[in-house]
């Protein structure tokens, strides 16, 4: 796996995507957590075809700017690109834009990090945090 892998996800802002619905605010426009989820989905899509069987990636860090509100019904496109590979650590840049317009209207942008893990072992660790101090 090397830098340069890309993927795009597209979404329409529905009631369920609003800050009001997600509990992250009280206005009926695209919620920031939903934007982050779309960006993470794009990152996953960029690398998933290149991961060996049994491996997956999980999010570890996010820096996100949400620059512009998107009303109900808005169509948005989020593109992620793998920019750095450091062992199992993956760094992505993403940019979210209004879809289907010749104007370059940026809704949000940021940097996300994920790590590659063995799915089974990861879930086993996640399920057994009992020995861990609070």
């Amino acid at each position, binding site marked *: 796996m090397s830098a340069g892998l890309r993927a795009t996800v597209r979404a329409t802002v529905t009631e369920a995507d609003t800050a009001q619905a997600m509990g992250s605010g009280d206005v009926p426009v695209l919620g920031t957590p939903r934007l982050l989820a779309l960006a993470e989905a794009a990152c996953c899509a960029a690398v998933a075809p290149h991961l060996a069987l049994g491996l997956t990636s999980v999010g570890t860090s996010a820096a996100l700017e949400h620059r512009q509100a998107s009303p109900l019904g808005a169509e948005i496109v989020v593109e992620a690109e793998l920019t750095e590979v450091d062992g199992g650590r993956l760094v992505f840049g993403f940019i979210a834009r209004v879809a289907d317009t010749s104007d370059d209207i940026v809704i949000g942008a940021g940097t996300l990090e994920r790590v590659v893990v063995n799915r089974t072992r990861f879930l086993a660790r996640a399920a057994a945090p009992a020995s861990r*101090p609070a």
Partner: protein
Amino acid sequence: MAEVRAEMVANVWQVVASEGDSVAEGDTLVILESMKMEIPVLVEDPGTLTKLAVAEGDVVQEGDLIAVIE
């Protein structure tokens, strides 16, 4: 004598070796967990594991002693 120290802040996920074990280069002493990843701590200097300073569930800081091999 070789001291094995943590290279990062981490949780001790699994302790694989036991005090008194003869360990060879490449053997796993403990498995740390940091940023959702498993990070095995491997033996670099073969010998006898005379001290194991961590237990499962411990949190280690960068530089903390994990084990002593003589």
